[in-house]
């Protein structure tokens, strides 16, 4: 995204008050064409910044964008002076958006570039904990992460005495380790962290506890308590058990800890009364995720929130389409990690709510009340 002049169409960078070409004040951020050419490159061998000093040598360069501006960018190792590049903004380890230039065309093992991996949380080579393997999303996430080159996928199963559909897809598979985890139980989370806390590079929180109903159609607080127990307290247990060691391992070589993923209902953003109490539990988790993001940032560990509308699972049986396939959620997890994103919206419902909320929150509230 760059500023573009509404009057003359010129792109501006860095951000300005007025258009450098025509002095118009009407500058809005829009998606800019990503292509450019690498004008010049340099390698910082002894940077003064402590972060880059540890990672030297570090390549940066000047890119002239096809749309006009010239930008300083971090460089993929395969970028050659004079050759075309594709630009993107990436979140660096401090959570800051920085310009990054990659070769225009795919090169061999392009995603393995050292500087690129600093900007992303690619599951390739990394060890991932999927916290709940009982759910369809959990099982699809395990498969997708494995296919994306994760070295080991640990998958949590609560109440191991209780069989579940899809169990055979997890047990006895190469690269998949089934571990006992009931995230809602403090001791269970702590015990597992004692075993594998030092080797979880990516944690994918697939806790799923969906129940219909708001306030008046339910009796008592039993279900609400379960919702809070599973989603909110489960989140806290996982964060307290795994967060501290993940934060200390943000720079631990190739498979350093990289990211924490939450799967949240998009109704965390705007209450859906048909699943009203569930929406509220998700809103609590969303708020908590922002706290976690701030607390993991000093270690360079990203927090990615994936927002989804109703998923095609049993507890959304009565909800008409469109619904999100669990596999689509799993694929979005992988692509979000590869891109080093903080937020990702999966499916039409999630995307629509995001847009409607930005446009008119009160209208959205009325619309969801049907």
């Amino acid at each position, binding site marked *: 995204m760059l500023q573009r002049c509404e009057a003359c169409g010129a792109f501006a960078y860095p951000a300005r008050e007025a258009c450098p070409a025509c002095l118009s004040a009407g500058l809005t951020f829009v998606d800019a064409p990503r292509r450019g050419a690498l004008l010049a490159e340099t390698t910082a061998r002894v940077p003064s910044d402590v972060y880059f000093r540890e990672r030297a040598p570090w390549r940066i360069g000047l890119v002239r964008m096809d749309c006009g501006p010239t930008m300083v960018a971090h460089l993929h190792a395969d970028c050659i002076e004079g050759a075309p590049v594709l630009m993107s903004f990436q979140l660096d380890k401090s959570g800051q958006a920085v310009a990054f230039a990659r070769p225009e065309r795919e090169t061999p093992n392009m995603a393995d570039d050292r500087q690129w991996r600093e900007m992303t949380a690619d599951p390739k080579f990394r060890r991932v904990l999927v916290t709940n393997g009982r759910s369809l999303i959990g099982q699809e996430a395990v498969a997708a992460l494995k296919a994306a080159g994760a070295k080991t996928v640990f998958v949590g199963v609560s*109440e191991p*005495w*209780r*069989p579940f559909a899809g169990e055979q897809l997890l047990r006895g598979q190469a690269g998949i380790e089934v571990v006992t985890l*009931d995230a809602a139980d*403090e*001791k*269970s989370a702590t015990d597992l962290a004692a075993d594998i806390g030092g080797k979880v590079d990516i944690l994918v929180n697939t806790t799923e506890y969906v129940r219909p109903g708001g306030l008046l159609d339910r009796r008592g607080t039993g279900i609400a*308590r*379960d919702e809070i127990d599973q989603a909110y307290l489960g989140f806290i247990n996982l964060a307290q058990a795994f967060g501290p060691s993940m934060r200390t391992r943000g720079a631990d070589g190739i498979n350093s800890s990289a990211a924490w993923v939450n799967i949240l209902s998009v109704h965390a953003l705007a209450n859906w009364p048909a699943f009203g109490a569930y929406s509220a539990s998700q809103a609590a988790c969303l708020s908590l995720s922002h706290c976690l993001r701030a607390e993991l940032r000093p270690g360079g560990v990203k927090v990615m929130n994936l927002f989804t509308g109703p998923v095609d699972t049993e507890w959304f049986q009565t909800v008409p389409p469109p619904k999100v396939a669990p596999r689509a959620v799993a694929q979005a997890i992988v692509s979000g990690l590869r891109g080093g994103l903080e937020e990702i919206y999966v499916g039409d419902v999630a995307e629509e709510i995001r847009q409607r909320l930005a446009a008119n929150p009160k209208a959205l509230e009325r619309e969801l009340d049907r």
Partner: protein
Amino acid sequence: MQGKNLLELAGAISSGAVRVVDLTFTLSPDFPVIVLPPEFGQAAPVRIQEISRYDGRGPAWYWNNVTFGEHTGTHFDAPIHWFTGKDLPNNSVDTMPAKDMIAPACVIDCSAGAAQDPDFVLTVPLVEAWEAKHGRIPERHWVLLRTDWSKKGWRDYANLRDDGAHTPGPNPAVMKWLVEERGIIGFGTETIGTDAGQAGHFEPPYPAHHFLHGAGRYGLQCLCNLDQLPATGAVIVASPLKIQNGSGSPLRVIALVSAN
């Protein structure tokens, strides 16, 4: 009874002449609980959360907050637990007579049958065969069904399949007979529930619950160490927590057994 006899009992316990057998599983989050179809309300699992452990939260002391459903771990069922016992007087754990908390037990060893068939059911002829050997079951005695189920790993212990649990228990006829013809005070099992895993398909469903609680009798489940009890002569001490209007509670169950 003379006060002297009670002191003799205390002395016998202390000397080991009367053995105290613990029939209780450790109350922990790992122990299986009953699983109902997901649209029904579920028993809250056992949770143990530290309040402090000689640390900043309480420098000299260790203690926990504990939460659990009434029917978790080794637990007691009061008559109010089932619809058949809902209108009886003194049908909850806080109002039941304290004297019912101590009673002798008959232990029926069905471990061989249960080893052959997880859906093993106790029947009247089986109890009659037991009586032929050990004598008629006296009134106000517990009947404890020994299956050695408590020795299994948790997965085999719960033994859940697509169509529900497969664990041994009594059939409807024997429950009605034990309650009406033998006047037992209660029925105890090693499995999760006094009824068989598939007892929902019996007529009436869940006959142990149906007949026991309908007649104001009690249930004990998730017992262990029944193999250490004699067929007759053990005395069971089972006093549930005094929960207001409680339908049951986890508890410590012990048996007094004469050593000779």
